[in-house]
């Protein structure tokens, strides 16, 4: 009979959950994961990874369409939607299998089913697991980590129907690419799909209720992104609400109100990307001290829910909704449980965020507006891609890197980037922030030439009036 008693059981095998389980196993704890669908969770199966595969396709396609600029002659460029989606699924499956392998390697028990808190037995938490094969099993553990993730928010009247109105999931596996598309919501998910489909040739309209797209980013980044997308032919409506969706056989007519004026647009498909809600249902939280606030589980800085032996991490435990935040949280919660010395709570301002549209967007820390709102004296530097040799050579002259320092202490408060490959650059500033470097160390750092990373240096120099190449 399979083992049913563990030191730690993680509910949910997404990036937060499986990483927490691996760390627990490394620390010598007897560990299990309960996963109801796929190891790797949304991120790996229906999120970060498959969308990156799709966006790689659109990037290459975009480049080929501009082959002439690179001195290449390419004729009759076309694509096969089915193959594009197949590739994306293959990537996701490969990685999901990889996670299963990691569980095995670390001797972590995996239960394919849906778990629910079912009281306690002495100091042990009990979990009732409804297995996918219809059997059921009761597991016990000293500690339970809830890592059940989140799902797309459904606004009344804008619910995805899987056919004409898509959530991220349908948008990732279309039987055919739409000719026209309305994307509701301009956060990372909405903008990545808008960018993908626009590059693949669709007429794309983005509708954002707030006054700017990518509203969590720095205002200058939002403005730059809007201009870049519009240049690509995307239509962007801000301060706009979608009030009605009229569905026809293969068309949807949306009524959009912006600036007091209502207009109707008719599109093939609609993508609803208006945020997420936490998966807090059917977890057996009733009668426990676990508190749910705005569809998310409330936790302290160590992921503790207030209910003895019950912790929560990742999307279900609150923003930012990022896989790397969930992974880091998973590690710190497990280390705290295991009594590892020197565990530190996560600092929100040290979590980078990336959006893989074209141009890419990446940021960390405070926006300029947020830093000003704190009443700090700032030093702000900005360096454009046009001043960087590598960017010109790549044929990617659009974008900038902006850095914000506390004028008094030299603390790097925030960094905001838009342009080619910035999602690969932001980690430099993440390290800088984690190590608490000031402008002095960044200025003293030798950046390799020619690289895009030189702009990171120049931006810091610019903040202190010392930029070299502009």
């Amino acid at each position, binding site marked *: 009979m399979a083992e049913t008693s563990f030191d730690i059981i993680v509910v949910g095998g997404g990036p937060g959950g499986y990483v927490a389980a691996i760390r627990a196993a490394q620390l010598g704890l007897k560990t299990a994961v309960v996963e109801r669908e796929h190891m790797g969770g949304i991120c790996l199966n229906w999120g970060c990874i498959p969308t990156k595969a799709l966006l790689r396709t659109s990037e290459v396609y975009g480049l080929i369409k501009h082959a002439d600029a690179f001195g290449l002659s390419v004729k009759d460029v076309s694509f096969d939607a089915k193959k594009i989606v197949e590739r994306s699924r293959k990537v996701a499956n490969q990685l999901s299998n990889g996670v299963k392998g990691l569980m095995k390697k670390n001797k972590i028990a995996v239960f394919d089913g849906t778990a629910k808190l079912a009281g306690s037995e002495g100091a042990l938490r009990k979990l009732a697991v409804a297995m996918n094969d219809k059997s059921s099993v009761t597991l016990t553990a000293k500690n339970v980590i809830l890592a059940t993730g989140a799902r797309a928010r459904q606004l009344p009247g804008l619910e995805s129907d899987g056919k004409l109105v898509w959530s991220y999931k349908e948008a990732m596996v279309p039987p055919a690419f739409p000719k026209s598309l309305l994307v509701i919501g301009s956060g990372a998910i909405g903008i990545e799909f808008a960018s993908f489909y626009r590059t693949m040739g669709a007429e794309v309209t983005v509708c954002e209720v707030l006054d700017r797209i990518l509203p969590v980013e720095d205002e200058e980044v939002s403005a730059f992104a809007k201009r870049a997308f519009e240049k690509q032919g995307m239509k962007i409506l801000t301060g706009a609400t979608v009030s009605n969706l009229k569905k026809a056989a293969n068309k949807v007519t949306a009524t959009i109100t912006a600036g007091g004026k209502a207009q109707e647009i008719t599109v093939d498909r609609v993508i609803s990307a208006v945020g997420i809600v936490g998966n807090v249902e059917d977890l057996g939280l009733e009668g426990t001290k676990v508190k749910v606030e705005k569809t998310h589980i409330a936790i302290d800085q160590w992921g503790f829910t207030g209910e003895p032996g019950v912790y929560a991490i990742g999307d279900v435990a609150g923003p930012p909704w990022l896989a790397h935040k969930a992974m880091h949280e998973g590690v710190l919660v497990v280390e705290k449980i295991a009594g590892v010395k*020197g565990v530190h709570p996560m600092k929100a301002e040290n979590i980078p965020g990336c959006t893989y549209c074209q141009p890419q967007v990446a940021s960390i820390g405070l926006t300029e507006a947020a830093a000003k709102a704190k009443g700090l004296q700032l030093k702000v530097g900005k360096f454009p891609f046009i001043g960087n040799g590598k960017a010109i050579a790549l044929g990617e002259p659009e974008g900038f890197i902006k850095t914000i320092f506390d004028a008094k202490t030299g603390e790097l408060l925030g960094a905001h980037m838009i342009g080619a490959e910035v999602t690969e650059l932001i980690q430099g500033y993440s390290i800088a922030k984690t190590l*608490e*470097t000031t402008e002095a160390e960044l200025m003293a750092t030798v950046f390799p030439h020619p690289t895009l990373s030189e702009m990171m240096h120049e931006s810091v120099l610019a903040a202190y009036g010392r930029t070299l190449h502009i």
Partner: protein
Amino acid sequence: MAINILMPALSPTMTEGKLAKWHVKVGDTVTSGQVVCEIETDKATMEVEAVDEGRIGQLVVPEGAEGVKVNAVIAILLEEGEKEVTKVAAAAPAPAAKPAAAPTPAPVSAPKPAPPTPVPAASGDGARLFASPLAKRIAVDKGLDLSRINGSGPGGRIVKADVEAAKPGQSAAAKPAATAQPVFAAPGDTRVPHTPIRKVIARRMLESKQTVPHFYLAVEFEIDALLAARQAINAVTEKRGTKVSVNDMVIKACAKALRDHPECNASWTEDEMIQYGAVDISVAVATDRGLITPIVRNADMKGLAQIAAEMKDLAARAKAGKLKLDEFQGGGFTISNLGMFGIKNFAAIINTPQAMILAVGAGEERVVVRKGQMVVRNMLDCTLAVDHRVVDGALGALFLQTLRAYVEQPAAMLA
């Protein structure tokens, strides 16, 4: 005023010993350097000499007594004019207290603990400090001493939150001693909280030993002429109420030698050498709170009587904890004298930022060879510790040559 003769420590680890034999009895007059008793430990038997002059008023510890604690009063010496012992100091196991014989115009002057007692591993001070660049900068802005702040970052690294939580001047959450080898108190051990002065001594001595490249020059001075001169001087000055000690004469000799070698009266800084215009001599004084070094300023320009009077006053106020800041901060050279404990010679730790410290041992009669003949002379061992960044070996040797001239021909000090 009666002078206590204390049980000496014959080695750094000695805590008690046996009073094997008294060489004097009550009523005897003793002179400085005269053997008064023999002390026996598990390792050796040693003769103990009188440091002061006077008449034995009382033998507190009887001959043959075992387990006599170091620094316990073993006898009481009466100075001239004193009739009898008025107050018998608590017998035998007196608390480890005032080792110094005398706040009096006593002979060989105030002591300084030998090279600081076995320092328990390394205290956090002086060790490499891990702090984020941001934390360092905020600390400078706020005037915080990072060494007093607990780091909460990885591996104890001091991060922004730590310096923001600390307040200027506050000794923050006292940093736990980052001892290489943790020291734990076992049952029966006593935990003695550090006093401020103890912490300063620990920090400064460690800093000096770790950052100052010391080298040592040992010499033996013949002090018969000096002792004779002292007697002659005291014959005059005592009538005015001042008695010059050997140590006072060493202070004067060092001051004169420093005036002759201004390169030695100097401090190292990263950018340049600072040569002091004034010759200010710090003198190590042991107090029951710890070591302190009051300063005889412009000692090269002062007469011996004045030096003796100042030293008496400084030592008394040092012991009473009543020195003013400018009376012990500064100085260009330090003298540390452990002669009264029967220490033959020792090497002292430089009192930074000074460049030299002279460790003075006990004067004693030794058989030496003069003109092919064995003769008995009073000899004094001194060891000069030198900061090699400031003074090279040859210069240090020249300084000692000059010092020798003054010590061995004290009349030269009049020049």
